[in-house]
């Protein structure tokens, strides 16, 4: 990989991040009113208190000055204080990040593995019964709101059958190994919801890229050499068809947070998604602002990783 390509991609990531920061600043500060106006909307404040708050937020400064201050604070991970509890926002974020990583990690991995295997099977035998059923199934899952899907799983597996707990992260008194199985038990339904919600896109992408390479000459050559069907598939067709799925996988890990908000809200899973949900209800803007920044940051990083690793997997890309 050339340094020039790497430099270009890194520069692009920085520019995007800078743009995100700017939007984040203007969206919350300029559009409907500043944080103090928003605060005053939910609580009754005296004019003096409003002035005091304005000075505290630096809102008496010129806009450009405020913007610079904001950039500096963000670089030092100072996201201000929660409007409700008064606690620093950054502390809340770090406390909630691991449950989300666990949930989305397990859910996405499940979706990728099942989706890729299903897509290979479907694409290789195009028009077979499995192909038709899995394609229709993917379209149906794609049209299903994930929140509603989660509620259905809740009704059936937590309500009627009572196999799994209906929400939360862990029971309060479990310790040691018992705690691990307890968390796993709580994890099943939310992770399954995420996996079902995303499996369709992996299946369809894998299927269509396999269809693209299936009729290539090198696949015919491999067949003509007398290789078994499975060998042709595994050694010649799949490796050449896996790239789009690979990119999609890396990008979906970047969407960690965005994907988890609804599912965490339904299952009261105490991650960043639930934090976002609570912040919406309480109109807790500093938290929303920080969440927006972190969500965008992870997507930008995932994009960068996808771009860079892609050139190792397919060196032709760089020339484009």
């Amino acid at each position, binding site marked *: 990989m050339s340094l020039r390509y790497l430099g270009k991609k890194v520069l692009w990531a920085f520019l995007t991040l800078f743009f995100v920061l700017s939007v984040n600043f203007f969206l919350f500060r300029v559009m*409907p009113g500043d944080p103090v106006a928003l605060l005053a909307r939910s609580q009754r404040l005296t004019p003096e208190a409003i002035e005091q708050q304005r000075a505290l937020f630096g809102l008496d400064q010129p806009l450009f000055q405020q913007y610079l201050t904001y950039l500096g604070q963000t670089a030092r991970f100072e996201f201000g204080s929660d409007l409700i509890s008064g606690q620093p926002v950054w502390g809340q974020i770090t406390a909630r990040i691991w449950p989300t990583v666990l949930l989305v990690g397990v859910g996405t991995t499940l979706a990728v593995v099942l989706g890729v295997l299903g897509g290979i099977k479907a694409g290789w035998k195009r028009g077979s019964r499995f192909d038709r059923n899995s394609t229709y199934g993917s*379209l149906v899952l794609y*049209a299903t*709101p994930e*929140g509603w899907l989660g*509620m259905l799983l809740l009704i059936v597996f937590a309500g009627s059958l009572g196999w799994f707990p209906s929400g939360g992260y862990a029971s309060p008194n479990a310790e040691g190994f018992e705690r691990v199985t307890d968390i796993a038990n709580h994890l099943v339904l939310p992770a399954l919801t995420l996996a079902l919600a995303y499996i369709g896109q992996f299946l369809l992408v894998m299927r269509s890229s396999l269809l693209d390479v299936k009729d290539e000459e090198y696949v015919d050559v491999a067949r003509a050499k007398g290789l078994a069907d499975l060998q042709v598939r595994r050694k010649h067709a799949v490796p050449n068809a896996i790239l789009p799925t690979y990119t999609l996988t890396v990008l979906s890990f970047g969407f960690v947070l965005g994907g988890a*908000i609804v599912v965490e809200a*339904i299952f009261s899973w105490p991650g960043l998604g639930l934090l976002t949900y609570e912040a*919406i209800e309480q109109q807790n803007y500093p938290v929303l602002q920080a969440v*927006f920044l972190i969500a965008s940051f992870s997507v930008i990083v995932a994009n960068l990783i996808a771009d860079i690793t892609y050139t190792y997997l397919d060196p032709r890309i760089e020339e484009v």
Partner: protein
Amino acid sequence: MATASSAADVVTVSPRRLAWQRRRRSLATNWHIFRHNKQATVGLMILLLAGLVAVISPFVVPESDLDPATATGTPNSPPSPGYPLGTDNFGRSVLDLLIAGTRVSLLVGITATIGAVFIGAVIGLVSGFYGGTKIDLVLNALTDWFLVIPWLVLAIAMASILGPTLWNIIAVIAVTSWATTARLVRAQTLSVRSLSYIERARVLGASDWTLMTRHILPNVWPVIFANTVLTVSIAILSETTLAILGLGSADAISWGRIIEEAFNAGAMTNGYWWWMIPPGIAIVLVCLAFSMCGHALDEILNPKLRRG
């Protein structure tokens, strides 16, 4: 002699008329292909039914039946002859809610899509037409940014700042979902722009505006149209997600809103399945129908996609 008479025929038929004849013919062919596509036909029937329900809903369901204060049923009762889908916790008929929700959900889905496709088409067309220039660079960067940004988080931020009215929700969905259209339209514009008839029109003195609207747009239009139909299901799902998170419009009952109310009233733990399940099924059916029609249109309008 034969050549002379056919030349005379051509003169009697005006170019405009010729163009319309051609359009009618291709419309007939396309309709034929569409009708013989089983998925597309099923999809279209579902959509026609949903459209009909949406149109007649104000006449079938009086406003008073949707008002928690004047609802007549016993709260949370399972389906019965009088209330085929049971009632919610205010005693409103779930079937009535579902019928009223059809109107709102379709309205949000279609209006937001029109907005998104309009923004996307304009940006994609301008960006592609001026491909390689600074305008393209800026618009393309903007599109890229909206493609990578986690839309739900941006939508949440915007919706909670703007406030939950129906038109705000529509605006939020439109603003967060135009980027895919812009990308497609730009690519198509770039490839059309290099064709020689554009060069010819330019040499004849056509302005940029004429070139874009009269020469390029008609060739990009099929891509826009197929994409529009596909975008509607995304818009309906987006509205559902926002509604489930409590950011739905406070002044209108959509399918997503029914699900949210059911969830908040503990429909799952109390086993009020008749309240929670029907709106979800309605969403799945309508979104599926839009996707099926959209894929069929995509295949008809972009012949390159047709596989042997």
